[in-house]
């Protein structure tokens, strides 16, 4: 009944790609132009919030190990938090710009969760490589929204954040169960549910 883990990763990859492209468009055309239509200001925070909400089913249905369950729970919470604080800032319910720090905090927690729940070294497997790459991308990428909190008009920082999300999406799309893309199938390659 449950979709394979890789399909779930691709679905979230699509979400991150959408987020990244929205932010990239905003960085290119400028915030004023992007927000000429009021709904666009709510777009990426709403998607982030929704993705957090949709992560809860992933958490409770993929319980092959406690560490995966906890990692998915952490991602659900930080995505909801990041989306919620951005929505509240856009709406004017929160006024202190320091609430923007919720986004880098979410990336840091997400990256840490990736690295903690991956027990293998970088080159052990495709999945291990992806988890390490995703973890470090999120942690290093958190510097963009962190700096952007204090220099909110910098297009470089906003563009950098957008590219981080696109990179996360690409890495999530790279996750696949049986994937003879450029290489061959390892004898260890499996077909069951995973992280």
């Amino acid at each position, binding site marked *: 009944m449950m979709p394979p*883990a890789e399909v779930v990763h691709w679905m979230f990859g699509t979400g991150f790609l959408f987020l990244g492209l929205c932010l990239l468009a905003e960085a290119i055309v400028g915030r004023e132009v992007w927000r000429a239509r009021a709904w666009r200001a709510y777009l990426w925070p709403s998607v982030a*919030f929704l993705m957090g*909400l949709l992560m*809860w*089913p992933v*958490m*409770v*249905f993929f*319980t*092959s*190990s*406690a*560490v*995966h*369950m*906890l990692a998915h*729970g952490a991602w*659900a*919470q930080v995505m*909801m938090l990041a989306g*919620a604080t951005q*929505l*509240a800032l856009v*709406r004017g*319910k929160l006024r202190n710009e320091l609430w923007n720090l919720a986004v880098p905090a979410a990336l840091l927690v997400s990256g840490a969760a990736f690295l903690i729940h*991956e*027990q*293998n*070294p970088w080159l*052990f*497997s*495709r*999945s291990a490589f992806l*988890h390490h*790459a995703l973890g470090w*991308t999120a942690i290093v990428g958190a510097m963009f929204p962190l700096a952007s909190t204090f220099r909110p008009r910098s297009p470089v920082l906003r563009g950098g954040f957008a*590219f981080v999300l696109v*990179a996360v999406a*690409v*890495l999530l799309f*790279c996750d*696949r*169960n049986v*994937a*003879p*893309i*450029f*290489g*061959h*199938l*390892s*004898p*260890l*390659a*499996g*077909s*069951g*549910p*995973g*992280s």
Partner: protein
Amino acid sequence: MRALAAATLAALALPAAAFAHANLVKREPSFGQRVETAPRQIVLHFDQGVIVVPQSVQVKTQRGVPMTAGPTRTAKNGKLVSVPVRRLPTGAYTVRWQVTSLEGHVLSGVYTFGVRRNPPPPTEAFGASGPTGTEDVVRWGLFLALALLVGGLGFRLIVVGDRATPQLDRRFYLVAAAGVIGALELGIAGFILRASDALQLPFGRLLYGDLSPLAQGTRFGLAFIVMTLGFGLVAALVFLSWLTERAALLWPAFALSLGLCSGLSLSGHSAVDTGASWRSELADWVHLSAACLWIGGLVQLGLVVWPLAPELRREAFLRFSRLAAVLVALLVGAGAYLAYLRLPEASDLWEEPYGRVLAIKLVLAALALGWGGLHRLVVRPMLERGEPPAGLSRSLLGEGAVGMAVLLVAAVLVNANPPRRPAPGGSATVGAAR
């Protein structure tokens, strides 16, 4: 960007080698399965190769008698693990397995199956321990979180209605947010602790424990799934209500939260003990929901309305007083019915451990009800005459604190087993399958 592109290309170019660590994808017999023909071996299928030692898979009866008939072996590059078993007579069996993933991490799990009879849930596998004091505290925290959430939402919608001020709403949402976050986090903690009881592993190894038989094969796991998903949705509704300033969104959040209180009933005594029926489950839900509404309402009255909305004090107190009368009637009625079901003899109250805990709960509940009665009989007429007594806020919070103490004893009670009662067939039965 070059580094990013290089990393991405490298990820694509690497041989596809499955996932983070080995996962158990199939068991023969499966968890919770009742088989009519005794299996000759236990087979575990992993999605990656694993390393085993001769005792990696152990099969025991519910009394702990080992039933393995040889060492654990692997096949198919370590992806298939099997152990031969002796002739298994009719009964329930516990399988505990422990293998080493190729990267060196120890993976563990436990499940049960039955030969010509239904097996118990993994929480009652051989070697599993009962709820601990930590679990009592976590369940108490969960009850408190439910009280803050359900009681807060009920108070805001039924008692305050459209008279809320922005200041009052701000604190109300903070309390409700604390409630829903607490319900989510403590629900997860409770599930992990219950898994720890079943798996009997230190925390470091519990992280790599297979929780799927517990999540999918027990009432407790089902309640965990439903409540986690439900409270995630409630969190979203409460947030959207705050964001858009639309109190109407709180109604579905309130209805959903009330419904989710039944998760605790469906995974507790009322679902499995002798005499359990839909009536006992309904009574348990009514009992818990009424308690949450009452205690959470007191917190809102003492912590939100009293300090922040003096103009609403009188009206809110009088309205809540009317609501509390109904809640107390429901609470006492449902509680008396449940006590009758679980302790049919009055002497059970002092002779049985469960009864003694219930007696403490009754004393505390009587104290809280007496305190509430004092508010209704003495304070309410004073407020109606426009003479509010001093220190009423502290008194309300005091009543709420006693209510919270009642919830603590209730948490201990939920995790305890009622005394055995003779079943119609003559054998004694006791709460199980949680």
